[in-house]
């Protein structure tokens, strides 16, 4: 092992510690009682309990002030539905658009692209109150549809701009070749352009899913408690009587799982696809 690779190993270890230790600690906490968590000084030695998880699943949380109802599973479901549909819709809308901006230089093209991006930087707070008014008058208040629509502000620009970059890296000749083989524009788009941009699409899908997953202000203001995502759900363990840190930790662990699954799934595309990315003409 030469000096350079030693250095490399050290660097990776330090980085790994910085990013993973807090999570490791959270996982430990998810098996602790609140009393164990609030020890001075904190200590990794304790008798583990599944109570935090069972409470989340059963929806019954027994605390120092009686039993509380926990809707976390519902929150988990909501988050999954909202994020998944938001991403799917964004892909359907943004991938063709991204292709248009990447492939054709057309009048107002860049302006439209920038406008679409600019939706990302309208601060949610700014539009929330008016949005609430319109949602109520349009009957969109407290509907998944309404939220998925608003979530496009978060997910669509991201998908658009990431995927666009990848389309620009796909060689035009390959598309032309396929056209000359006698295939229509559409099947060229579906069978050549999209597969070749797949790593980008995978990355964009994953990231926008994460951003949709982490948002909560929209659902909070534009929906009732039956439609709230995990983010709001986790706050429910912060009550006047105590912060149930163990619950929050367990909730956090749960909330990671769906995204993690998606990440592992897309990772395949990232790795596989990237080797054939950037087939420049």
């Amino acid at each position, binding site marked *: 092992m030469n000096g350079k690779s030693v250095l490399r190993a050290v660097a990776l270890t330090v980085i790994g510690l910085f990013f993973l230790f807090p999570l490791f600690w959270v996982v430990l906490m998810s098996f602790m009682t*609140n*009393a164990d968590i*609030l*020890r*001075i*000084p904190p200590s990794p030695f304790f008798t583990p309990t599944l109570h935090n998880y069972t409470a989340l699943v059963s929806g019954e949380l027994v*605390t*120092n*002030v*009686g039993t*509380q*109802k926990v809707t976390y599973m519902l929150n988990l479901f909501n988050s999954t539905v909202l994020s998944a549909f938001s991403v799917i819709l964004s892909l359907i809308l943004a991938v063709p658009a991204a292709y248009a901006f990447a492939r054709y230089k057309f009048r107002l093209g860049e302006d439209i692209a920038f406008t679409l991006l600019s939706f990302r930087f309208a601060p949610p707070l700014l539009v*929330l*109150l008016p949005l*609430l*008014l319109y949602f*109520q008058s349009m009957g969109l*208040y407290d509907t998944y549809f309404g939220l998925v629509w608003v979530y496009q502000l978060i997910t669509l620009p991201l998908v658009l701009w990431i995927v666009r970059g990848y389309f620009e890296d796909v060689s035009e000749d390959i598309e032309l070749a396929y056209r000359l083989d006698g295939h229509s524009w559409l099947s060229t788009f579906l069978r050549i352009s999209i597969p070749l941009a797949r790593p980008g699409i995978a990355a964009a899908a994953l990231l926008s899913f994460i951003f949709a997953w982490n948002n*909560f202000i929209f659902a*909070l*203001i534009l929906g*009732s*408690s*039956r439609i*709230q995502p995990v983010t*709001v759900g986790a*706050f*429910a363990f*912060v*009550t*006047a*009587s*105590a*912060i149930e840190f163990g619950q929050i930790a367990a909730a956090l662990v749960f909330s990671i799982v769906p995204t993690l699954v998606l990440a592992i799934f897309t990772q395949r595309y990232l790795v596989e696809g990237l080797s054939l990315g950037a087939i420049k003409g």
Partner: protein
Amino acid sequence: MSNKITGLFSDYVAGRMSRRELMIRAGQLGLGAAASAMLLNQAQTKAMAANFDWKKENGKAINLLLNKHPYTDSLLMQIENFKQLTGLKVTYDVFPEDVYFDKVTTALSSKSSGYDAFMTGAYQTWQYGPAGWLVDLNEFIKDPAATAPDWNVGDILPGLLHSDAWSGVPGEVLGGPNAKQWALPWGFELNSIAYNKRMFEQAKVDPPKNLPDLIEKAVKLQTDIKGIYGIGVRGSRSWATIHPGYLSGLTSYGGSDFTVENGQLKSAVNSPQCKAFTKLWIEMIQKAGPKNWTNFTWYEVGNGLGAGASAMIFDADILGFFQQKGTKEAGNIGYEGFAANPDKKEPTPNVWIWSLAINAASNNKPAAWLLLQWAAATQPTLFGATKADLVDPVRQSVWDDKGFQDRLKEKYAGYLEQYTASAPGSKIYFTPQPLFFNLTTEWAASLQKMYANEVSVDEGLDKLAESVMGQLRDAGIVK
């Protein structure tokens, strides 16, 4: 069987049987204490129906906006009884406290009829009321047709009832002649000392008598006992930092947020009393407060006491109450009324009141009032106070109730005494005005600066006063 049981309890409620006898007979029928309590509660709820038509809104539906809180738990435990009693359909949204008021403010501001009634603090009504989002509950309270004769509004602690009533004129006294009853007190907190008996014994000190004494003892405690800090109080950059210990102490020192001269508000945050007290307060935190005081919210204060990180707290009494169960220091918590000013004997605790209010945009106001009326009625309050954690209850009769007192004596030694000492002087000591949150938030921020020695107390408070007056002027509240 079930008839037999219900019959049994209705007999008791009708006074045809002693409580002792009831419990024995219930035992014979194989009922545990908890179960009997529920049944008793049911029977008593039915009894409420005797001399008032609770069913007048029968079949209507109301939707509640509630905060995740032990009070809410107590309400929901009994909600079935309310449905039976009134024949109303009740749905509710419960939101975590962290985001609760964001939800309330937006929901109300949209003027939607989605929620008929909701939980609120008294301070929020100073915004919601003038904004026109609330109903003046006097319409109902004063209307015999709307309110049960035995509901007995007089039983609700007057200080609290008044604290929820305001004319909307900045500076005009709470509960004054032409005040509107914006909300109905439901459960409340007054501010006093909760301390760790174990530590106090170890350091051989007894509960502090006043602020200088407190500082002294706090310092002694944290020098005698390793790894703890003397006193926990809130310190985050939020209005919530001002209203508990700080304002209670300030009041005791004769300070106040405003003075009213011929109807004109004048900021008093830089009065000599205020400066004197604030100096002590900052000294207290710097000498014996938590290291990360500026991050301290309700939760850090509570955890500190419960987990044995702090020797005492000066905050809501129920915060100490909650730490008595399920925490490391459970059982070691003692309670003490507190008058900060050495020259004063009677505590003057500021209070936080969880209240219920009706949305002005609601289409079912009478139905909503039924819920408020029921929730704050003697019987459900008593149930909450004894079987759940509706503490502190707002009804004198509940405080006088033997069952409730027993419960406190049993598990919360000293709590009742603390309360009796504090109660007489406890009310909201803020001057009602719609910029309450602007003032208190900025106040907290400048306390943080003083704590970090970025500004002197005098300078900080002078700046604060100046800025407050400026904002009042901009808002057209003062000339």
